[in-house]
């Protein structure tokens, strides 16, 4: 079956997508408090120079997320 969502690592540079939901409750608590909300538009700015982290933009706010933090955010196709 085809996946109904994708995650930040699936995005191309400067591509953006709407947030659908979170997979991890603890990370969801942290991310939502920082303003990463379902329905928010996330843009991938660039991966970290050595990898394993992403520079993203959410509604004009710039955030650095680890791979697993980024992967816990489900985005629309």
């Amino acid at each position, binding site marked *: 079956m085809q996946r109904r969502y994708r995650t930040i690592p699936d995005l191309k540079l400067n591509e953006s997508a709407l947030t659908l939901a*979170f997979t991890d*409750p*603890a*990370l*969801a*608590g*942290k*991310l*939502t*408090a*920082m*303003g990463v*909300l*379902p329905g928010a538009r996330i843009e991938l*700015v*660039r991966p*970290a*120079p*050595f*990898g*394993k*982290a992403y*520079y993203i933009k959410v*509604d*004009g*706010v*710039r*955030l*650095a*997320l*680890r791979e697993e*933090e980024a992967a816990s955010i489900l985005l629309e196709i």
Partner: protein
Amino acid sequence: MNDHSGKLLKIALIGNPNSGKSTVFNQLTGLRQKTGNFPGVTVDMKEGRLRFPSGFEATLIDLPGTYSLYPTSSDEKIVTTVLTNPQDDFYPDALVYVADATNLEKHLLLFTQLLDLDLPIVLALNMSDTAAEAGIKVNTTKLAERFSVPVVSISGRTGENIQKLLHELEKLLKTGGASIPPFYPLRDSEKQVSDAVQLNLSVDNPYRALLLAHHHSWLPFLPKQERETLAAIVQTKNFQSLKAQVDETLDRFDRFTPIVRQTILQPSVEPATFTDRIDAFLTHRWFGPLIFFGVMLLVFMAIFFGYDITGGWVENGTSAIVDIIGNSLPDNWFASLLTKGVLPGLQGVLVFVPQIALLFLLITILEEVGYMARAVFIFDKTMRRFGMNGRSIVALIGGGACAVPAIMGTRTISNWKERLITVMVTPFISCSARIPVYLVLIPVALPASSWWTKALIFGGMYFFGLTAALGAAFVFKKILRTSDPSYLALELPVYRMPHWKNVWLTVWEKVKAFIGGAGKIILYISIALWILGNSGPSGALENAENNVRSTAAADISQDSLNDMIAAKRLEASFAGIIGKTIEPAILPLGYDWKIGIALLSSFAAREVFNGTMYTIYSLESVAEIEESEAQNQRPFERYGRLRQQMASDTFDNGQHVYTLATGISLLIFYALAMQCMSTLAVVRRETGSWKWPVFQFLFMSGLAYLCAWLAYTFLPKV
């Protein structure tokens, strides 16, 4: 203004990270602030005096920045701890909530949580100047109406409307604020829990009751019985804390986002900004790390040359004072304690102040500008490989000045293991106290080598320290276990010019932390060392002195005679006895009892090594001259007489003490050994037990011993 019991009223300043809260704090209090410590926990807290236009005064408390009352790191936990406990010493009578006006939609979650705690609150929309420039218009009247709280547009940078904020706050304190219905009505499942907590623990506020249930496992003020009651309630109601937190957060956003949109006029398109253009370089795949290393190189060169210049000033200035005091006092034990114990101790503290101030000045500027967050982002992966967090990089850089304030800065790391590892390995980074020791030892180890070789070895010492730090961290990573979650999730703030008042105050705070933490201990140990060096078994010191006088050549100068007496007295003292007692233990490293004494005295601060060596080699009167000449000499040409004496010294068997092997062995020992009592004291404070500092002392010194032994064993003794 005072409360019923006559104490000053307490106002807490609160807001998200990057809301410009500290700028507002500095604007409100200026220099009328101090850093205190929350009792029982190890988070420093800034406290200042607030003066209202009408002349009333109140205490202003700066709470750590946090996004919500559901904390993840130890400094965020403070906010929840203080605000859920009306008995807390810092429980405020009113709050000033600082929000970034340029991004209000992301800054009000915590605000609405605080509304539900029923505390009188003023909403301060900070950065109003930047918001106005960006074309953002806020209808404060409407906002105030919708939230039923006073709202003031301010700018911490320009000081705009700060007086108005104080005025609103004073009005609020007099009226006590309007009683308003909860912003977030609890869901059924939450209400059941909250009701049960209110009933069983007699808590008056429903939201506070809910927070107690959420955080019952760690809130430090809960007595055992209440903790158990809360746990029982959570269990019987089958309360899903994490899910409830997320639901609450989303619900709050749903409620306040429309309010923000109705009261704020924001230009819809966001142009590619200055910050984005800069980040294209600073976080670039190749340029990012390169620029970082370039910046660090510049920072450490600035420190080194800064040390050279300012160290000389302090040395000369304080030596002059010591001389004046020494000459005006009669020659007795008290004068000696003062001029050879207390004052050199103070001098040892002061010598480091300019360099520590300089390094923290540079770090603070990088932090204020917004660069540090990028460094954390770039190196998070690297640091994690060694069991640390991207945030550890800030501590490791700070360790280049002094481990004491650097270790205190690890509190932003939420994961206990990552934080502990950072605390444990930061002292491996070569701090400024090691510089003078390296400068003596490198030319002693390699007298014939070129200036460039010596400079390279000097740089290599920093690299060696860093390697040791990362290596040890890697081992700890394999050993330690924790179930604490680890986060990066970090906001990368917009680049801004540093706010200089913030910079100066932060540097001042770090210097105070050094003087208060390390300084006191350096002073105490200097005094203890003076006692060890100036007392001995009965009559031993007098005998030593008389021996020198009776055997000395008749034509010897007074200075030389005094120097010889000082050296022999030190040898006969308890310090000398300790040095000789430990000689068998340090002989395998190539050290004689004289180095033993120097190692002992390095417990005050590593640089005391030099001073002790001067005394021991009968050069006490030369020490001051060479110290003050040092700033006019190239780094490895300093301390010439001392090095000459050391070079000609031999063991009993006639073999030279200072060979390549001993020199390198000593360099390695000074790079690795835990010799700093001040660091151990701060580690104890930060980890809450003696277990970790004792362990740190043992493993660092053990590693130092092993590596020094290997170096001495395998290097040529020439």
